[in-house]
């Protein structure tokens, strides 16, 4: 899709209202029939302007994911800042897939320039790359964050979601398995870290990110959506891994994660973080892999790489 038409929103959308609306839509569709009738992505992007981080929330986020409370916005915090705009795109009446129950398959963030917490930001988001997946239909939600004053692109995120069991007419059930297929032959290395995640992990991250998706909040709310218990936010796990990679990374970096088995709370998560150095001995990339130390099932893999 080329250059979707921007729709300027007056303020950051409220995530809780979006979730309520999504639940209402889901219920309505259940009564009136499963399909949205749409097979194309909306040809618009949503944009909000002049957004600033709220410092108290920033500090709480940084402490929760293990970042030092510096004046630079963590790449995962920017994701959380942009998330309501992305959600509002997925909540449009002409959006072809059901928002609730979508699975976060993978995420890529390019942090091009460090962002000071005082900086005014313009956030724009749209949907792209609707494609078949062996288990349903997938798409990318793209978000771009620019400096309000200079218009420079500072941060770009691409989140790939799967609507499981939803097959749209005209879109092939392509065998493109996208990342999460290698888990079978995984044998866990010695861990470099061990996380103890309590039941409250989902609620704590919801508080700092605003993402109150019921599957993360409590056993009951998750069961209502068909899960056996609440699961940790994927972006919480990835943000902790990014924090664990630490100060070694360069100012501009790409941060990738592919999600596999969900982390049901409470949980112990084992991690291995390795550093790859270039020929001159400088940092090139850090890779991470996380798994369940009891079963050996892989939860996610990813990397943080130098962005030239």
């Amino acid at each position: 899709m080329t250059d979707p038409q921007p729709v300027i929103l007056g303020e950051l959308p409220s995530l809780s209202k979006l979730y309520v609306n999504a639940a209402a839509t889901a219920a309505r569709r259940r009564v009136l029939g499963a399909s949205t009738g749409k097979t194309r992505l909306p040809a618009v992007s949503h944009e909000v302007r002049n957004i600033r981080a709220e410092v108290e929330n920033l500090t709480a986020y940084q402490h929760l994911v293990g970042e030092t409370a510096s004046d630079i916005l963590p790449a995962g915090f920017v994701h959380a800042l942009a998330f309501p705009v992305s959600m509002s795109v997925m909540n449009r009446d002409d959006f072809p897939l059901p928002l609730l129950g979508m699975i976060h398959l993978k995420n890529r963030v390019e942090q091009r320039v460090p962002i000071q917490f005082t900086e005014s930001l313009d956030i724009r988001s749209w949907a792209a790359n609707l494609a078949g997946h062996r288990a349903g239909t997938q798409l990318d939600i793209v978000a771009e964050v620019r400096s309000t004053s200079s218009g420079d692109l500072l941060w770009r995120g691409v989140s790939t979601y799967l609507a499981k069991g939803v097959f749209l007419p005209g879109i092939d059930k392509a065998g493109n398995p996208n990342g999460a297929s290698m888990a079978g032959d995984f044998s866990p290395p010695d861990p470099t870290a061990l996380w103890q995640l309590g039941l409250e992990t989902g609620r704590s991250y919801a508080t700092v990110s605003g993402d109150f998706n019921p599957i993360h909040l409590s056993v009951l709310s998750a069961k209502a959506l068909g899960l056996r218990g609440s699961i940790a936010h994927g972006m919480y796990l990835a943000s902790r891994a990014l924090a664990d990679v630490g100060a070694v990374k360069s100012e501009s970096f790409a941060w990738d994660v592919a999600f596999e088995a969900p982390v049901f709370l409470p949980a112990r998560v084992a991690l291995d973080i390795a550093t790859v150095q270039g020929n001159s001995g400088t940092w090139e990339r850090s890779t991470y892999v996380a798994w369940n130390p009891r079963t050996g099932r892989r939860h996610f893999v990813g990397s943080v790489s130098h962005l030239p």
Partner: protein
Amino acid sequence: MAAADVTAGATREATTTPQATRSAVIVGGNRIPFARTGGAYVKSSNQDMLTAALEGLVARFGLQDERIGEVAAGAVLKHSRDFNLTREAVLGSALSPETPAYDLQQACATGLETVIGLSNKIKLGQIDSAIAGGVDSASDAPIAVSEGLREILLDLNRAKTPVQKLKIIGRIRPKDLAPDAPNTGEPRTGLSMGEHQALTTAQWKIAREAQDELAFNSHRNLAAAYERGFFDDLITPYRGLSRDSNLRADTTLEKLATLKPVFGKNLGSEATMTAGNSTPLTDGASTVLLATEEWADSHGLPKLATVLDGEAAAVDFVHGKDGLLMAPVFAVPRLLARHGLTFEDIDFFEIHEAFAGTVLSTLAAWEDEEFGRTRLGLDGALGKVDRAKLNVNGSSLAAGHPFAATGGRIVASLAKMLHEKGAVDGRPARGLISVCAAGGQGVVAILEAA
């Protein structure tokens, strides 16, 4: 041009003029017996125990009303009220109240670092006498309120009106009342110290039997030292204890072999670390009296050994480049090189037994040709430590390990051993101390018989 040269020459001359450096001698030490956590010292605070150890030192060396140059000590598990722990202990002792004091903390290396720092002050001529020490209580450990409750209480403190206060109090939820107890987990990895060491132990392929044997020797050597009265002038009884309560004089290799592994059970490799070959949580305190030779002579006090030098190191353990407790592996070759010494020139090796696996991994690294070349920058292996010279009077596996108190225990014991040994081949007997610490740190030192 010429003038500039002259100036440069003059400067160079000034900086190379040899300074008349003084020696820092160890006069002696005193500690209280170490007690397993929840035992004889269960209600004693860090300040109580440090004061008790200090009072024993004062009594042994007649330091009543003496104004000591400076006292430095510390604790790893520390209450916020103990911000001036050492000074408070001094005020509670018979030392002159005009004795200054400061607290220091470098995890398990705290005790050794106080000795090195104070001896440097003595060598520089800043002070003539000093007391180094350390204390820790795992029984009387600080417990913090939860982060939620702490934030609410701080907000409450800042509130101005009763209405504001009531609103803030209303934020307290039952989960906020759960306390936050200290643990031995590394903040950046979440792995406990034992789990970290289990990774290192497996990496260096240290066998269970070798670890049990080291633990057995520690108990046997410590028991023998007590039997021949070695600790008579190093320990003051406290709270009914006159020996370290962790000491099992009657333990056997067979008994040690029956213990089940406690660390490294989920790490994939075979688990080899048990409660027998790991140090238990312990309470205790230790002190060391340091001085110039003149101060010792003028007070009619003994000079057991001199503090030759110390070295600290740290390793990048967070993503597993080196083991958490392996920093001394790097500090020792640097310290030896600075003095042109090799293992052949050392008569006693005091390697703190955090875990038997720590000592054996350290020895294995020093014996490894490849490691010596690639990581230590040497031509080959650093060398082999003669086991007959290793921890000859026992160490932490038998005595216990009240974190900050271990350095003072080792320094005082080694100083006495060196004094008894006297000269070896016409040179003063030498001892090497190696202490690993949390955060991937290590502090090492060399003492010489005085």
